[in-house]
């Protein structure tokens, strides 16, 4: 899979082209090119590794937002079985920007809920860029309550630039919908695991993010405000690459930053070249982490689980006294 959409990956694309060309030639003319191919392939791996090890915070935003990254439904396909999608908030409509339903993780039933983006233009529009309306959050809460009713854990996947800012969203109470989720997630009597798989944009991300354990994929980001928005407000320039870089680094939005700030519990490693370079590997890593955390959490009685979840969030913040 080539990854041409990201500027800093261009050297990789060049190398990949060379390798493919060589392979094609070899195939056509029945030549043995192994000795020439090996160093190129080695170089590709090294270069990819180097680029990804040195991603700047803004570059990570671009990776996190990439349409090539695996989305919630990809993880559902790769790490889960027996998925039955459930639609609708029972109040107003179905919001395709959030998907959810029953699935099995290692054979056990779980409720999976996640933001869902689109890959092609039509799907991107249908899913509204993965930016939910209030209905999406209300559907999510409905499914969480359903999971609680049947004593099944909730696994959420966060992948949104934010909750939608529009007329309908405001009319139907975007704020209320998100606030209500925060409130209810803090008291849900089944384990909740949240994983940021792409971009965790502000309240629209947190609306699925109050959990016993919060994880981030290595190249995901999680922020209180969009990098562009921050740069625009502070330096009246949300467009130039310099200001975006400055804002991205000031906001401390990478998985490593959030781990250091004790906002997340674990960083799930991505394969060299990022999650989009190897869906199977990242899905396997994610599955391993989910199973491990669920195993730990399932030993706790519901009251203790909720008490610990509350204590976890009540500790968050830094101040002087």
């Amino acid at each position, binding site marked *: 899979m080539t990854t041409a959409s990201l500027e800093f990956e261009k050297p990789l694309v060049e190398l990949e082209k060379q390798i493919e060309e060589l392979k094609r030639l070899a195939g056509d003319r029945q030549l043995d090119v192994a000795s020439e191919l090996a160093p190129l392939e080695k170089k590709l791996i090294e270069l990819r590794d180097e680029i990804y090890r040195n991603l700047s915070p803004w570059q990570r935003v671009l990776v996190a937002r990439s349409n090539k990254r695996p989305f919630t439904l990809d993880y559902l396909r790769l790490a889960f079985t027996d998925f039955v999608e459930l639609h609708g908030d029972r109040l107003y409509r179905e919001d395709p920007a959030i998907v959810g339903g029953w699935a099995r993780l290692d054979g056990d039933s779980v409720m999976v809920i996640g933001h869902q983006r689109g890959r092609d233009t039509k799907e991107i529009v249908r899913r509204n860029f993965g930016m939910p309306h209030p209905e999406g959050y209300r559907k999510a809460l409905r499914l969480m309550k359903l999971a609680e009713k049947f004593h099944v854990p909730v696994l959420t996947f966060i992948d949104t630039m934010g*909750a939608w800012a529009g007329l309908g969203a*405001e009319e139907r109470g975007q704020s209320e919908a*998100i606030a209500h989720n*925060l*409130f209810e997630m803090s008291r849900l009597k089944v384990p909740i695991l949240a994983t940021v798989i792409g971009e965790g944009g*502000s*309240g629209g991300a947190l609306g699925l993010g109050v959990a016993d354990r919060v994880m981030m994929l290595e190249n995901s980001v999680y922020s*209180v*405000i969009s990098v562009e928005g921050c740069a625009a407000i502070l330096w009246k320039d949300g467009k130039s690459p310099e200001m975006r870089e400055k804002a991205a680094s000031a906001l401390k939005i990478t998985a490593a930053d959030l781990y250091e700030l004790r906002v997340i519990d674990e960083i799930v490693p991505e394969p060299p070249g990022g999650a989009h370079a190897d869906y199977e590997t990242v899905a396997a890593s994610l599955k391993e982490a989910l199973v491990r955390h669920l195993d730990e959490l399932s030993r706790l009685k519901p009251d203790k689980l909720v008490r610990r979840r509350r204590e976890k969030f009540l500790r968050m*913040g830094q101040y002087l006294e």
Partner: protein
Amino acid sequence: MAWFRKEKKPRQPRREKLEIPADVWEKCEACGHTDIREKFVRNLNVCPSCDHHRRIRAGEYAAILLDDGTIEELEESLRSTDPLGFPEYPARLKKAAKNAGDADALLAVGGMMDGAPVNLGVMDFAFMGGSMGSVVGEKIARLGQRSLERKYPLIIVSASGGARMQEGVLSLMQMAKVSAMLAQLAERRIPYVSILTNPTTGGVSASYAMLGDAIIAEPGAVIGFAGPRVIKQTLGQDLPEGFQTSEFLLDHGMLDTVVHRKELKKTVSQLLRHMSGKPAAAGWTST
């Protein structure tokens, strides 16, 4: 009563009246009505001509809502720090403290409301636009804890553009933190009343502002998840008249009631007494 005492005052000579210094006059931002400051103040900073509710400070809300002489500031020693090493944040904090005081963007107080004890948090827009960072979240959490321990109702007056971006994701997490505290209050049936003033947007609106057992707004306040500017940008067109005002939210079922500042204390007090099984305060039974 006030107006009898006034009559006893000696009449001001006409000449003196004409020499009122310029800074005694106030002008309404909404309608341009000009009046002596005292008239605005006596009207709780609501324009005597058009009823526009002017922005007032946190301490003024405390004085409006609580009984005279009962107000005690709580958690006043909490100060913001700079957890991310964010550019210019320490300087901004310093400036905000100089202009708006040391309470950060939320004044936490205990006091009596018509003789009944309450905990009250009032956001202060004058401090960095009422932005919610770790101190705001911690103060509300502690007020909530105090409410849990003493079974006192909690009241929060919101005035905020949202989360404080200089504290990054820690500010975002304050939404979850405060919501987790409010869930505990709800489970113990301790009433929580949320009062929304101009403006209440962003992370504040998407957490505690919208979680009240009663949600009250002052007239004409801008309330919403996204600020009007952001929505205008997404839409690429002007917003409908009155969009995201208190009255708009009331029409769309998002608020319990819109109340004039003069009626705020009475309404909250009535609600709290209903919710905590207390009789009506003296003198209310007929109204």
